[in-house]
């Protein structure tokens, strides 16, 4: 694995800082919903999947059963199967490394790894993003859980717009070839279509079908931009 380029490290740290703010809001929301401080922190340490955590706490807070909280949370997390498959060719083959890497497999680390035009940087980008977000998310959760409502609503600062914006920046390299554009457009269209009709989580997972559309429109070798050659 070559040294991770400084631009990638900077992007990973920036991403971590932005996600840390959401960690704060998770801490606030979780303790507001009645979770103890250690429990809120344990969620972020061991589940470490933002959307899943927010959804599960929401279900618990509204009086739902643990089973309902788990089912809702895992439905939202189902997209990680797709992330793992996508990262399969990019991470080293060591089984032990992969068992460890799985804990840090999140939206951010997948997006950073797959955004690398030079595939040799993918594993480094994965670890930098995964670890930086892990540290920031957990610190943020602890701060939010301890200091609670004194911190105010992150939405007032426009921070809820940071999440899609960061992923748009990470999507950009995928849009350089026809297959990636087709996959992204059809995935987005399908997800939006499903939002009113399916439980949260389903639209994003269904968006994966966009990859098949991309494959159909631009099979391997059809597009010179796909080539791994520098």
């Amino acid at each position: 694995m070559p040294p991770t380029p400084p631009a990638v490290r900077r992007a990973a740290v920036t991403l971590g800082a932005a996600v840390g703010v959401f960690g704060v809001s998770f801490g606030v929301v979780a303790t507001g919903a009645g979770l103890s401080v250690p429990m809120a922190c344990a969620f972020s340490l061991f589940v470490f999947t933002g959307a899943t955590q927010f959804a599960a706490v929401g279900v618990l807070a509204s009086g739902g059963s643990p089973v309902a909280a788990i089912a809702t949370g895992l439905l939202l997390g189902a997209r990680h199967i797709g992330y793992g498959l996508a990262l399969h060719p990019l991470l080293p083959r060591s089984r032990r490394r992969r068992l460890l890497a799985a804990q840090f497999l999140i939206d951010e680390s997948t997006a950073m790894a797959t955004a690398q035009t030079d595939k040799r940087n993918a594993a480094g980008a994965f670890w930098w993003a995964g670890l930086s977000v892990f540290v920031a998310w957990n610190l943020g959760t602890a701060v939010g859980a301890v200091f609670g409502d004194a911190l105010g609503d992150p939405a007032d600062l426009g921070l809820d717009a940071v999440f899609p914006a960061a992923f748009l920046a990470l999507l950009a390299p995928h849009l350089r070839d026809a297959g990636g554009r087709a996959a992204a457009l059809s995935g987005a269209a399908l997800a939006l279509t499903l939002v009113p009709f399916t439980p949260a989580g389903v639209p994003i997972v269904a968006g994966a079908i966009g990859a098949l559309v991309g494959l159909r429109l631009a099979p391997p070798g059809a597009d010179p931009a796909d080539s791994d050659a520098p």
Partner: protein
Amino acid sequence: MTWGWPALAGLAAGSYALKVLGLLVLGDRTLHPTVLRLLALLPAALIAALIVVSTFANERELVVDARAAGLAAAGVAVWRRASFLVVVIAAAGAAAAVRAIT
């Protein structure tokens, strides 16, 4: 919230299983170029879906609010090849500005 701990244990185990599945299920086999191509396209589709859902969905409703302004600003910044930090700040600034005036 005593039943929080069982929920937490189930979610932690389930989330880890979802994450590890895709990394291990294909094992050591060498993959066909078509499969590799499909796997390379998967993040584009999933990330695009994640972006639009986190911008335009409010529970099960489709809405256009300050987040859309943030995404538009981010789009311009990405198109102008701005750095990652600039993209993020442009989005937050645009969303906060729209919220402040509405």
